[in-house]
């Protein structure tokens, strides 16, 4: 993730609006990964997400004069991406298989994690193996949309809680609760599978074995 730089963005926008249009390439670059991930989270289809990402970026360009700097630029861009994605979902509503009702966000709720006693190490080396990447992607793609988009923005795009909340138009409290539930679901789904990828050596990272 590129760090947000409000001064660079404000200066860039001012210059683009006064005619230095080429600067739009630089302005949008730090946002383009987040835009894609959010749209992929909504649409669950690479080609559709890419098409929607291009449309989003065009809308950002055409509406640039309306950006008031009250939020971070990327937050504003992501909210446009989200509207684009939701609009497309509505158009293909017959294909929707998930309810939009997020349920209650007041309580983290009970969950029973996958109980393990020894999986402690991060098998980062194992990421070279395509199989592990596929297991991780499947688990994330298998989450209900309201959890999937939180994981994509917060844990993958590494946005903070506030920006995640603003981009999705929900409260920070709701982000935290959904993040908790999403991580719990992922732990339950993934921990038993990932155990097989952990190196045999013990205590490499956490030193508590």
């Amino acid at each position, binding site marked *: 993730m590129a760090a947000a730089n409000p001064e660079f963005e404000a200066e860039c926008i001012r210059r683009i609006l006064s005619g230095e249009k080429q600067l739009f390439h630089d302005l949008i670059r730090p946002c383009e990964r987040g835009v*894609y991930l959010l749209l992929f989270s909504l649409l669950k289809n690479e080609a559709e997400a890419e098409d929607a990402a291009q449309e989003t970026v065009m809308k950002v360009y055409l509406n640039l004069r309306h950006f008031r700097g009250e939020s971070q630029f990327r937050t504003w861009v992501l909210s446009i991406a989200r509207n684009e994605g939701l609009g497309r979902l509505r158009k293909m509503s017959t294909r929707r298989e998930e309810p939009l009702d997020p349920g209650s966000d007041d309580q983290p709720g009970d969950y029973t994690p*996958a109980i393990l006693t020894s999986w402690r190490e991060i098998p980062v080396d194992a*990421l070279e193996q395509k199989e592990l990447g596929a297991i991780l992607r499947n688990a994330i793609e298998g989450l209900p949309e309201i959890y999937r988009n939180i994981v994509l923005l917060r844990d993958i795009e590494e946005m903070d809680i506030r920006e995640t909340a603003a981009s999705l138009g929900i409260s920070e409290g709701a982000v935290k609760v959904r993040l908790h539930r999403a991580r719990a679901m992922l732990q339950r789904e993934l*921990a038993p599978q990932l155990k097989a990828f952990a190196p045999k050596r013990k205590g490499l990272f956490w030193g508590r074995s």
Partner: protein
Amino acid sequence: MRLDCKHVWQYISAYIEGDVDSALRAEIDKHLETCEICSAVLDSTRNVVILIADNRVFELPAGYSQRLHERIKRELAES
């Protein structure tokens, strides 16, 4: 207050975020010292978070950025 395991699991995500107050953190740490199961749940959850953050897990489609900027170039030329 003595925390039970279920109570600790409720705060796993907030604990990883550093979003628990110091009193609760101390209680959780105390519990983790003696509870193998909760330690493993915490570690595996943290590992899952670290793993999915790896850029190799969610790669953008090949050529995504290039196609996007070509589109921008076309639009800028027309606008």
